[in-house]
């Protein structure tokens, strides 16, 4: 298959992730949708790496996976902390940082 097809799939995944981040209100699901956006980016990076015959895109994708793991770690820690303080687990109601 041509590289363009992979890029189309990556665009669709990225868009679905963005829609999920905007519509869902459960922070766990928001984190999952963020992961999906990062995966769309990863697929595009690897497709371009294949197109150019260059390994740099794959290294970039590995670093993105690392950053995503860190983000999950911190995000889930925050969800657990929110749960411990018996605050609502809902990104619409957690408005204490509002200016």
């Amino acid at each position: 298959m041509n590289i363009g097809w992979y890029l189309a799939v990556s665009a669709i995944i990225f868009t679905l992730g963005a829609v999920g981040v905007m519509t869902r209100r459960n922070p766990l699901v928001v984190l999952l949708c963020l992961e999906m956006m990062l995966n769309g980016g990863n697929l595009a990076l690897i497709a371009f790496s294949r197109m150019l015959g260059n390994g740099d895109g794959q290294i970039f994708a590995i670093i993105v996976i690392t950053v995503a793991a860190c983000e999950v770690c911190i995000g889930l820690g925050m969800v657990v902390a929110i749960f411990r303080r018996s605050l609502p687990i809902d990104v619409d109601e957690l408005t204490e940082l509002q200016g």
Partner: protein
Amino acid sequence: MAAVLFFIGGIGTIAGAIGVVTLRDPFLTVLSLVVHLLFLAVLFLLLRAEFLAAAQVVVYAGAVMVLYIFVVAYVGEEVTLGSDTRAPLGASLRLASTVFGALLLIELFIALLGTGLRGIDTKGSPYIPGFGTPGFIGNLLLTRFLLAFEIASFLLLIAAVGAVVLARRRGGIAEEAEEELVLAQRRRPLGTGTTAEAVSTLAFAAAHQRHDHGTVEAQPPPPVDGPGDPVDEEPSPTGGGW
């Protein structure tokens, strides 16, 4: 064959993504993301990123998703389920964000179709033997991208420490025990000085923890070989350390 595999992988990936966005149950959402990741690994394999496909399955679909499942199970399904059903001003905002997503998709496809990159319409550059294998990746990571590698490892350390600090139990069992130990040490003037009396203070603290508060506090501190006998085996490991 590659085309068939591509369509299997692509359709599975997009179906998993749609499941993540639309399913209500958080458990099903996480499982849907696992499906998405497994099919995405097929696409990675087709692009000759073998090591990345393996890392995707092991790190994401294995470790990270287990973490998600644990947190969903810990937080509780009824809490997470109930939060998505009620909608104060959700309908119009949801429609607006869907329209925004559609615009984003159209924009991405315009960029994709109108690009000047000629390589997009090919199957990629000719295959170099060893492209995408662990040796290839490791060679690049430890030579050209050594700084990024080190920074990523440091970032993982920071994230681990941060998660522990965020999710720590504040005012829990450990700190209560510590406070009680400080209170026991405040009684020290009853018998000051020698090792024997220090041990007897420890025995008193252990007895204080074991018995009811009111009865023990009324008594004078026990002598070394008096009522401290039944608790002798408890302070002895710490006493030996002193």
